[in-house]
């Protein structure tokens, strides 16, 4: 019998239509992947199934969970079902737990709510058991831990423990690994798969990433604008795809932009034995301040026209390195040279050198002062010149045109653009001063796959037209592989491996690199030939 069955579901919130006749089903012991880009309505589908919709929602259709008609169920029935028969895991583990309650209490609460006759001690006992099942053994992670004392991955395990404590029939995981590092992601995916196999529960796995779901799901549904456009068993889906959207999605996920390999070996940026220490805040009024070494003895070179990748997980020192190269922070030891000139001289950053570098950041929303027009935003780096050029308006137009925007966009405000367009504006801002090196700091990580593919193409085109050199920083290995010539692998402030991109990815030598590459979710190997 089908565990969860959604038939012809319509949802509107305050009159805005979100779902248009969506149907899908989940069997016991089955992992069903639901894939879609942002705004496709995939999370709202999950909230429909648990009836945790925002106010002003209106649903039509049919949802049954193990015979219970969810849409007709009273709030009381739903409270009894949630956490007991149907559980959820959310995207953001840092905010999903009550910050002032111990993890033991929060896990035990699931049990106490549904089985009020359980004694506190029994509930705590069972909470220990649940935490052990998610690989948080009591001797390392006592029940008295508070969420802020744990890492993101560990917190996500606590959320999962709360969800599976009563062995529900259905678990809904809404982008459970999107906020996590690659290796942590792999562990969480493995954990979820194991729990499904052990308990025989159904798992609805919602993700924006085809590769993530590909590794674990039995069945995949692809969503676009509130509808399922394609679905099928994972083994055959990629071969049998019919719908243009799902084909395009797959193509974009595996997209590799056309690039010409660099033809010179002239060094542009030289980073030599760089070390950066941070002083930590005082623990007490007169206590000595401790230090934290963010980057330790890092050396590498970027050649003219090259695209160099830098991969590493959060906290490995990527951002510190970026700021040091850009001359925003002074380093304690070592030297950073651009075309042979130091970025930092006599405790002052060297403006003449800084003119040759620009940066593009990750967040297309936080990268612009919302109160300035595009023309002012894009022309900001001209401040690095000693005099403002008279043709600054022409330069803005030129930069906008070269990233595929129109000259009249110069007079608009950033909120009038989509995420992908904003990232183009950010690139235009980097181009305006005609730099030699552009640092791309997770520049495509926040974008949907189809937009990401377009931006990658743009970057490839710009580098060949303007002879640009890129330092491409990302946690996403597939993106790094598609756009870089050489790659550096960074861990805990050190470079552990470097080499030609293909070589590093195909035959990694350092254990950490191997781990990273093994953990990265992948599309089927022959996917390129399928499209």
């Amino acid at each position, binding site marked *: 019998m089908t565990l969860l069955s959604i038939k012809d579901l319509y949802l509107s919130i305050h009159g805005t239509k979100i779902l248009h006749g969506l149907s899908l089903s989940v069997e016991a012991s089955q992992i069903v992947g639901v894939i879609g880009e942002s705004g496709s309505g995939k999370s709202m589908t999950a909230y429909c199934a648990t009836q945790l919709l925002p106010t002003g929602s209106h649903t039509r259709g049919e949802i049954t969970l193990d015979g219970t008609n969810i849409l007709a169920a009273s709030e009381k029935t739903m*409270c009894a079902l949630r956490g007991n028969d149907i559980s959820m895991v959310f995207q953001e583990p840092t905010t999903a737990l*009550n*910050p002032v*309650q*111990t993890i033991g209490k929060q896990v035990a609460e699931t049990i106490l*709510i549904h089985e009020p006759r359980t004694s506190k001690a029994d509930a705590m006992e069972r909470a220990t058991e649940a935490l052990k099942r998610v690989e948080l053994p009591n001797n390392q992670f006592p029940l008295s831990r508070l969420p802020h*004392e744990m890492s993101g991955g560990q917190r996500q395990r606590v959320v999962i423990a709360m969800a599976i404590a009563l062995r529900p029939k259905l678990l809904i995981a809404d982008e459970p690994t999107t906020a996590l590092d690659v290796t942590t992601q792999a562990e969480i995916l493995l954990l979820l798969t194991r729990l499904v196999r052990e308990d025989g529960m159904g798992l609805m796995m919602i993700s924006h990433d085809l590769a993530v779901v590909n590794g674990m799901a039995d069945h995949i549904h692809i969503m676009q604008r509130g509808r399922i456009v394609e679905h099928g068993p994972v083994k055959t889906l990629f071969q049998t795809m019919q719908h243009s959207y799902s084909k395009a999605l797959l193509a974009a996920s595996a997209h590799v932009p056309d690039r010409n390999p660099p033809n010179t070996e002239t060094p542009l940026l030289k980073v030599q034995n760089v070390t950066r220490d941070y002083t930590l805040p005082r*623990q007490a*009024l007169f206590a000595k301040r401790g230090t934290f070494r963010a980057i330790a003895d890092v050396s590498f070179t970027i050649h003219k026209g090259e695209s160099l990748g830098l991969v590493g997980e959060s906290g490995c020192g990527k951002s510190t390195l970026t700021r040091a190269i850009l001359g925003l922070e002074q380093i304690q030891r070592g030297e950073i040279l651009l075309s042979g000139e130091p970025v930092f001289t006599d405790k002052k950053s060297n403006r003449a050198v800084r003119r040759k570098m620009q940066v593009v950041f990750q967040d297309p929303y936080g990268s612009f002062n919302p109160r300035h027009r595009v023309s002012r935003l894009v022309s900001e780096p001209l401040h690095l010149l000693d005099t403002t050029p008279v043709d600054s308006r022409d330069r803005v137009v030129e930069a906008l045109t070269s990233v595929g925007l129109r000259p009249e966009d110069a007079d608009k405000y950033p909120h009038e653009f989509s995420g992908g367009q904003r990232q183009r504006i950010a690139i235009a801002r980097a181009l305006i001063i005609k730099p030699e090196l552009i640092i791309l700091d997770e520049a495509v990580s926040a974008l949907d796959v189809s937009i990401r593919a377009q931006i990658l193409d743009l970057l490839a085109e710009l580098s060949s037209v303007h002879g640009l050199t890129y330092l491409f920083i990302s946690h996403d290995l597939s993106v790094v592989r598609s756009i870089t010539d050489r790659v550096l692998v960074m861990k805990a402030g050190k470079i552990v491996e470097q080499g030609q991109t293909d070589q590093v990815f195909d035959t990694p030598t350092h254990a950490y690199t191997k781990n990273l590459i093994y953990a990265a979710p992948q599309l089927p190997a022959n996917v390129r030939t399928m499209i």
Partner: protein
Amino acid sequence: MLRYTLSRLQSLVLSLIAASIVIFLTVEIVPGDPASYMLGLNASEDTIAALRDQLGLNVPSYQRYWNWVSSLLHGDFGTSYTYRTPVSDMIRDRLWISLPLAIYALFLSTLIAFPAGILAATHRGSFTDVLIMGFTQLGVAIPNFWFAMLMVLLFAINLQWFSAGGFPGWENPLLAIKSLTLPAIALALPQASILARIMRSSLLDILSEDYIRTARAKGLTRGQTLYRHALRNALIPVLTIIGLQFSFLMAGAIIIENVFFLPGLGRLVFQAITQRDLIVVESVVMLLVFAVILVNFAVDIAYAIVDPRLRGG
């Protein structure tokens, strides 16, 4: 927890030292000589000099500061210039009115504000919410001393339920509390309005947090979620306001005492100002500031009880 308490204690002491220096310096720059002021125009040079000596005014300022602080630590607030009686005695009697009044008002304000704020937040947008928010809007706008006068007009003059002012002393505690009731209500009304608004917005913030959604996904009802997860966390900003309010209440009590002719610290300080009895002003101000700093310390400790994250560091 111990480490946190110690670090808070340390900042308590530092604030007290800083505050006492500020107060001392302010009074120090006052023009005129208290000794000649006390003795009147006809006093001879010798008697003035003798009194200056007796008051300890002939030593350098840093030493006078030290003398002042060290006697404060021993509970000695000096001698009033006008009444020639120990200031500590004068303050002690007055404090027995002002302090209970402030605490009474704080109690009332919290008692009104919590249910009102919670009700408004949980029924956001409803008629109840609009009504409560309307009342608080008015409550914030009404000057407490004017509200006090209107209450005197209604309850004391027209209805004769309460006396219009004065304080019968603590021999009969019920009577004493009764005579503090109108002043306490007058003080509490604006504070309750502010507190209810803060409670509402803090609760609304918390209710939109991810972990509230997690709790609902666990199967908790709305009521259980509110009680077990939202309320305690919403208290954190509310505590700050309660701490700040205490200082407003102490200060507000000074004005309200005037409306009800209560012989509290407020009356004392205004008499002292008109008589230029600076040592009394200085002592009362120091006492008020001490109370504020102490309450802030208590709030910091309460934080750590509500929010265990603070206990570690």
